């Protein structure tokens, strides 16, 4: 079967390798143990590594691994408890053992030296142990690899480290004492750190070495990061002590230094702790100690700090950028939202903004200042209105200045933080739209008005851009955009009709900026006004051409410049001054010459645009009248006829032309004038005031001579009128854009509310048309949302509009609905 079997030759005796002979464990161990002794006494250079390795290998190969492992441990335990522990105990001087509270007779310095000596000794003992155990582990490599792995034992090195922990660190420092060496070490390190915090110089290296030891040893049997002795025994009490230290320090600092110094100190402390972790302790502690410092010095104190007398308010008021940026940095460390800083900043913005508001109100309400009298003309009313306009412009400038201030702080100190910017914007909007200050829309519009009329004169394009930008910046904050639109239209209307604008281009730039900012809807009507103006120019020149064709040039022909205004686009009611109501019902009676032109133009216009009706607004516009005054002796004694070109309002012209028809010495009473012209009484009063009361333009003589115009006053041509200039402008009171009086404002607001009602209704219908059915809450929310770009309606207004729509059967309530709901009725 199996062929070729059988011994082919005699085997030689086996070579004497590992296996064969049994070993004598005790004898081999004695060799190893004496070698370990040499290693511990630093005489390893005599030993043969190969020999020791071989002995250990053979013991393990012969299944004596267990015995070897135990013997090595016993050997180390013995060494540590007899040799090393004694050396450590020698280092424990009485003044080291005393608890820190009990320091009395011994000086702190002696205690410090004792501490350093103790750390040094302990560190050396550990380093020796570490080195020796490294060498033992090298010798016992085969045991670690085979025996320890197969039986799931700790490697001999780790096992010996545990022995060091238990035999040295956990040993009591003195017999009968409950303080272990480890406790003592923790205490010494903490004391040294305390010294360093108080400004002393300590031996960081030595502490680092001790920390290295604590990091190399573990609590329990597992070696996870959390069970390092450093973490398990030292770190906790370090953090606890630090917490106490910084808590006390923060109290002291808040009492004794100002907020800026506090911030600087806190930042220094954080940097110090970071450095300490790097140089003295462990990097892994950095975030933990940072948190302790942040908690105690910042988080728990930030409110007090910010509200200190030298806190955020002081810093803002004095532009302490560096300190503000510190506060920001510190607050950001403990709170990504920076709540406290934000609150303080918002509070200050609103405070300062309210001051600006109040100053404007005070300035507009104060009695005319005495220095105003040096201008010496115009009634008191105009003074006060002017004063209000000045207040409006000052308000705008002040708000802008406030904004610049906070923008600068935001950029330089708050790292251009997004959340803070939002908060700033909100606070600005808060005081600008405050219910106690309803004038912001009007003031902004007036600011633009003032600049359009005077401010931008002689400015470069860039400067004009900046002015426009300022206005837009403020406009962004305004909540009730519709109110602003109303004022802007009114002011623009005057500028356009009275040719007050310096530059049409700039006006258009402003419009396009608003278009970008507020949308097409907002500027549509404003643009329509410009369009009307353009068309009117064409009409004027067209009519001029038309008249020229009719026949020879007539020197007496009256030239007509006309503005045809679309009635819905222009806020004409605001132009007519106080006489609206009468103006609408009574038509001014024009003198025949004027009436002819009027009819001529109506015919011309009728041919171009049939079906359109023209309404003549005599309350507006102006006329240039050439007036000839009787000869009076000139400087050279010659009699001279005096010619003046008078620029008067339309009404003024109508009045003056009456005196053309009668002899120079005949007078007319107020009532006669009114009857012949149909000019509304209030307008007539104002026009007569300019023509007969104002000293420089007294073309008529009033009898009796007084400031007020009474119905019984008589007027006659002032033949002895003496004007300094050839061209004289007869101003009529209240002809410019000024701040509204309270009565006017109420009216404006009422009108605004009326038009808001329409907007609200329109929005409700739009929403319901789309949704068909909706609960009350949702409807209100959607309406508010839809109207947000224009204004913020009162909820009661929405309710009222809903009621009204139900009455008019656009909507109905849904019966038996769980919540109030409406249905759209098509």
């Amino acid at each position, binding site marked *: 079967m199996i062929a070729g079997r059988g011994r*082919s*030759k005699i*085997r030689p005796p086996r070579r004497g390798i*590992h*296996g064969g002979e049994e070993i004598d464990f005790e004898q081999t161990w004695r060799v190893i143990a004496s070698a370990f002794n040499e290693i511990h006494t630093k005489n*390893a*250079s005599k*030993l043969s*590594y190969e020999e020791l*390795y071989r002995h250990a290998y053979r013991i393990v190969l012969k299944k004596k691994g267990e015995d070897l492992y135990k013997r090595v441990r016993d050997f180390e335990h013995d060494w540590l408890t007899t040799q090393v522990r004694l050396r450590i105990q020698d280092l424990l001087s009485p003044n080291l053992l005393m608890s820190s509270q009990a320091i009395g007779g011994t000086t702190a310095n002696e205690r410090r030296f004792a501490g350093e000596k103790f750390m040094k000794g302990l560190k050396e003992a550990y380093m020796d142990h570490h080195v020796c155990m490294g060498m033992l582990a090298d010798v016992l490599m085969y045991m670690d690899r085979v025996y320890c792995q197969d039986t799931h034992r700790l490697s001999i090195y780790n096992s010996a480290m545990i022995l060091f922990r238990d035999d040295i660190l956990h040993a009591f420092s003195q017999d009968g004492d409950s303080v272990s060496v480890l406790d003592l070490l923790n205490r010494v390190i903490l004391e040294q750190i305390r010294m360093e915090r108080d400004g002393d110089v300590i031996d960081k290296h030595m502490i680092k070495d001790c920390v290295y030891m604590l990091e190399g040893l573990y609590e329990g049997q597992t070696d996870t990061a959390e069970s390092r002795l450093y973490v398990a025994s030292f770190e906790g009490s370090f953090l606890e002590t630090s917490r106490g230290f910084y808590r006390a320090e923060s109290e002291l600092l808040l009492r004794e230094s100002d907020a800026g110094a506090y911030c600087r100190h806190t930042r220094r402390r954080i940097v110090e702790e970071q450095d300490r972790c790097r140089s003295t302790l462990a990097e892994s502690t950095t975030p933990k100690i940072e948190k302790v410092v942040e908690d105690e010095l910042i988080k728990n104190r930030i409110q007090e700090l910010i509200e200190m007398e030298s806190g955020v308010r002081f810093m803002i008021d004095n532009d302490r950028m560096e300190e503000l940026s510190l506060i920001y940095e510190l607050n950001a460390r403990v709170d990504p939202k920076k709540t406290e800083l934000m609150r303080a900043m918002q509070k200050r913005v609103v405070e300062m903004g309210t001051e600006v508001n109040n100053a404007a109100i005070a300035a507009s309400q104060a009695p005319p200042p005495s220095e105003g009298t040096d201008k010496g003309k115009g009634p008191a009313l105009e003074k006060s209105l002017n004063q209000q306009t000045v207040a409006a412009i000052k308000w705008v400038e002040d708000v802008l200045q406030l904004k610049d201030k906070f923008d600068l702080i935001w950029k330089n100190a708050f790292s251009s933080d997004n959340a803070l910017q939002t908060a700033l914007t909100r606070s600005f909007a808060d005081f600008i739209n405050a219910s106690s200050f309803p004038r912001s829309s009007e003031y902004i519009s007036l600011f633009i008005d003032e600049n359009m009329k005077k401010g931008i004169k002689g400015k470069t394009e860039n400067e004009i851009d900046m002015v426009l930008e300022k206005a837009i910046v403020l406009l962004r904050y305004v909540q009730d955009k519709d109110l602003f639109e109303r004022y802007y239209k009114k002011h623009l209307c005057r500028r356009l009709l009275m040719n007050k604008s310096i530059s049409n281009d700039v006006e258009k730039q402003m419009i396009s900026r608003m278009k970008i900012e507020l949308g097409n809807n907002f500027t549509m009507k404003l643009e329509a006004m410009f369009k009307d103006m353009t068309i009117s120019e064409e009409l004027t020149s067209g009519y001029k051409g038309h008249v020229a064709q009719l026949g020879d040039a007539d020197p007496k022909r009256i030239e007509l410049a006309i503005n045809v205004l679309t009635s819905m686009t222009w806020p004409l009611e605001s132009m007519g001054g106080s006489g609206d109501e009468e103006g609408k019902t009574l038509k001014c009676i024009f003198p025949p010459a004027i009436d002819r032109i009027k009819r001529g133009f109506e015919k011309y216009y009728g041919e171009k645009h049939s079906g359109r009706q023209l309404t003549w607004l005599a309350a507006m516009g102006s006329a240039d009248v050439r007036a000839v005054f009787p000869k009076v002796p000139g400087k050279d004694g010659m009699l001279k006829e005096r010619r003046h070109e008078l620029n008067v309002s339309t009404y003024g012209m109508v009045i003056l032309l009456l005196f053309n028809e009668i002899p120079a010495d005949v007078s007319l009473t107020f009532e006669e004038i009114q009857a012949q012209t149909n000019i509304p009484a209030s307008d007539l009063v104002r026009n007569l005031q300019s023509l007969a009361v104002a000293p420089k333009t007294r073309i008529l003589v009033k009898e009796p001579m007084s400031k007020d115009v009474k119905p019984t006053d008589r007027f006659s041509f002032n033949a002895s009128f003496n004007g300094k200039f050839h061209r004289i402008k007869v101003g009529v009171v209240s002809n410019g854009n000024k701040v509204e009086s309270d009565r006017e404002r109420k009216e404006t607001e009422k009108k605004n509310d009326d038009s808001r009602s329409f907007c609200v209704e329109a929005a409700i219908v739009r929403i319901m048309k789309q949704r068909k059915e909706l609960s009350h809450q949702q409807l209100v929310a959607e309406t508010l949302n839809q109207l947000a770009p224009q204004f913020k309606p009162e909820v009661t207004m929405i309710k009222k509009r809903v009621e009204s729509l139900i009455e008019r059967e656009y909507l109905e309530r849904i019966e038996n609905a769980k919540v109030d709901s409406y249905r759209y009725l098509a």
Partner: protein
Amino acid sequence: NGEFSALVIRCGAVTYKVHRIVLCCQIDFFQKACGGPFKVSMIDLSHDDSYAVGAMIRYAYGGQYGPAENPDPDEQALHHVHVYAIASKYNIPGLQAMAKDCLKTLADAHWDKDWFADIIRSVYETTISTDRGLRDVVLHVFMDHDMALAEEGTESPAQKVFYEIRQFARDCFNKMSEDKKAANDEFKIFRENTIQCICGYKGLKNGENGSVYCGDCRSKWYLK
């Protein structure tokens, strides 16, 4: 001198001069022996098999080791056992694996020789019981031919090993019972998953290649 200096390794009468850096980099033992605080004039490995030491040095240099001087297969096999032992002692896993493969090839070819018993003896003497490498090699070869070896008398060299090495006898017993259990399990799985057609053909339950037809008579599976 330094890392590049020569290292003298003595092994009985033989002396190897090697590059310190080559040995230290490849084998931890030399690193510790040279780099540590211990005495290092030369390293005496006289207690190890000198051919195995040579093999180890060759392996450290070239990743290979040559056969023994004596070309006889029994000498070769013993050489591999010694190389395996030295690789295990000094923790050189690559060399260990190489020696194991070489021994397996020889054992497969020469299981029927008388000296195979000597090899088993050597393997059990030079390795620790938890190291299954070589022990499993000889065990499996032995068990693969258990029938043939059983026919030999109790005094045959192979069977004598049972008396001498109790650990080996125990390993054989364990292996037998493991094999038996594995065979039982396999049969159980086969039985549970097999069906038989009326034509007598047996196939797996789920049809052959997923088909619903008998693999032999091509009719639908009809169970007997």
